[in-house]
């Protein structure tokens, strides 16, 4: 049995024709990483999302250098939304800990709180939109506005995608038809994804704040 994980480069420099290697290989269980497939799935999605947001950031950085860029005000509501998202992440972390300890009531309350706060965040973002549109900051009037609307939308869509999995988890939880280890895993993965979206929001908000 192999004792530690080999790096990708070690793996592709194996010499499978050598007898000693063949002996090891015959016992190989066919898994490359010691992670569940769901966890790798979430990580892959986070990598792809990171690439997507990086392209947006690059486009933003490139586009803001051109003279027609007019900065947009940041309504104070955005700060409140940021706080809500931070609190959501905090509660998700608590829920995850509770689920690891199998404290069912806490998990249930935690999941509902998280869902409520996430929808509040999305609602808050829409309020910000409403305010800005009332002030006359249209997407077509300046590209900075367009970036703001586009980035908040994409971020919100990511959150909605996460909420689908949150919904699946909570419906399974309420029906009581689950394996504890599986439930712990789904809650953990949702929590990771929520933390990821919080970091993405920090980056996007910071970008808009400091430019």
């Amino acid at each position, binding site marked *: 049995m192999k004792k530690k994980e080999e790096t990708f480069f070690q793996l592709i420099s194996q010499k499978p024709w050598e007898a000693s290697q063949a002996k090891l290989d015959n016992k190989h269980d*066919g898994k490359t990483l010691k992670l569940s497939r769901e966890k790798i799935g979430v990580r892959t999605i986070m990598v792809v999302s990171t690439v997507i947001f990086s392209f947006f950031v690059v486009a933003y950085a490139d586009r803001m250098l051109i003279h*027609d860029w007019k900065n947009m005000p940041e309504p104070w509501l955005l700060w409140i939304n940021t706080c809500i998202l931070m609190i959501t992440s905090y509660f998700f972390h608590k829920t995850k800990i509770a689920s690891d300890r199998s404290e069912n009531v806490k998990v249930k309350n935690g999941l509902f709180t998280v869902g409520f706060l996430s929808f509040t965040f999305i609602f808050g973002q829409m309020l910000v939109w409403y305010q800005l549109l009332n002030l006359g900051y249209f997407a*077509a009037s300046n590209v900075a506005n367009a970036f703001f609307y586009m980035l908040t939308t994409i971020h919100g869509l990511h959150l909605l995608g996460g909420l689908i999995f949150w919904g699946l988890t909570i419906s399974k939880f309420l029906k009581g038809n689950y394996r504890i*280890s599986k439930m712990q895993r789904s809650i953990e993965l949702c929590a990771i994804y929520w933390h990821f979206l919080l970091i993405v929001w920090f980056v996007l908000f910071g970008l808009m704040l400091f430019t």
Partner: protein
Amino acid sequence: MPDEFDYKIEAKADMAASGTSVPPIDYAPVAERPEQELYHSKSWWTTYVFSQDAKYIGIQYTCVATAIALVGLALSLLMRLQLAFPNLSLLDASVYYQFITMHGMIMVVFFLTALFLGGFGNLLIPLMCGARDMVFPYVNMLSFWVFVLAVLVLVASFFVPGGPTGAGWTLYPPQAITAGTPGNLWGIVLMLVSLVLFVIGFTMGGLNYVITVLQARTRGMTLMRLPLSIWGIFVATILALLAFPALLVGGIMLLLDAVLGTSFFMPVSVSMGELLQTEGGSPILFQHLFWFFGHPEVYIVALPAFGIVSDLISVHARKNIFGYRMMVWALVIIGALSFIVWAHHMYVAGMNPWFGYFFATTTLIIAVPTAIKVYNWVLTLWRGNIHLTVPMLFTLGFIITFLNGGLTGLFLGNVVIDVPLSDTYFVVAHFHMVMGIAPVLVVFGAVYHWFPLVTGRMLDQGLGKLHFWITFVGAYMIYTPMYYQGFLGVPRRYFEMYESSYISTVGLNVFITLSALVVGLAQIIFFYNVIRSVLKGEKAEKNPWKANSLEWQTPKMPPEHGNWGEKLPVVYRWPYDFSVPGADKEHIPQNVSPSEVAGAKVEKT
């Protein structure tokens, strides 16, 4: 369906010895891992339409991709007729541009990408890795249906006011969305929506392909025992997961420019004598985003083709693949390099010349691993027991075609040569050879090779050979004259060309068009062959090509739902044990244990 775990005791002892505490929840120890719960469909709809069986999804992908490819083929033949016989006035300028655009986009994205990754990926990955299905079958099913939706949206653009977009498959702004370009209102929007859907659908599928290869292989199947087909598809999928986001981002921003009138890419411009509202946008930013997707896209198509060719060549030459490790490394290196060569598509876009210098260098470097692959194929043939079966013919055709397409690419990779040739038919011939004809030859070879696995019947070899020779020779009759035309300076993208004072293109154009018609019609032979063989073809014996990889070792052929019957196979060797010196068998399948083979010496690869 329990699998026998021979290593149970050993693994337990190992854990006890190492004295580890409770492992994290995430990792189930080897011996106690339950097998994947296999989904069983319950109704007609979930069996035949919304199927979650990867094999079936692969066939669905193949059929849809082929159907849309026929549309692309028809468009190209109509364009060729227009070029050869401009007097007929078959197409006017705007229709010609629309056909160019749709032909390009359909063939590159909706045909080749979908076919290699969606089609062959779904069919081969679980079977070759020894899995019962993909890791997320439901997501896999969704991926296919989102792809179907993307195709339908694309096709719908033929029927909207103004027709499909005529901006060229690169969709460069500002012209893609300004008045004067055909389909600038509806067509471009549908095209972008279709691409966004495609990317979303592909990401769902790609997740499956990557994680299945990484985590769901059978016992004994290490990464370095995987068939090269899987390596090609695996690396290509990773490329696609990282490259398609660039298309997605560019597509979304262009969509907003088109629909909301934002100016991400739209500079100050005057259209029809009126100043547009937009200002400050950066068209070159779109080009960077597009080609950051566009160049890896070439390798997304090419790498699976490389992998499949390696397997076909080894099986049909009865010889192990030369330099297996080198082949894997070449795939990985090509994949990595393909992300830093994109701007060689933009030499004429007005970049800083130093930029072009950098990209010319990286482009030429990528020729090194590619050349390694070609050498290794040729060395695999060397002293092999070459069977000139139909798959082998297509494979040989691929090597030659890829070679001459690739060599012309070396010239075009240099700025000084690219600048004068960029707008000519030389480029058309180059990219059709390297990523049109070459991958399509692999597709045909692969279809002839794996057809018995899918249907249990053989394709007719005689018809196959006829189909090969017409397609292969015909392709050269189409594209060799185009290289020549390019040297003469005949511009591409022109919808009609008559005699001019310095170049006559009429005769050559007629010749090319007639060849294209012959090749196009010759595909009827292929489809006739497929349909005839499905209905009443010769029944295939098990493992008709005497191959070693796992997909041929299923208990039943074609494999049933769940692929492996009661017990998953156990792998003891790589898939290239052909003509092993001293062995009493001519070929040794991957799941044959060493004790079953007498006298085999281990051979260094």
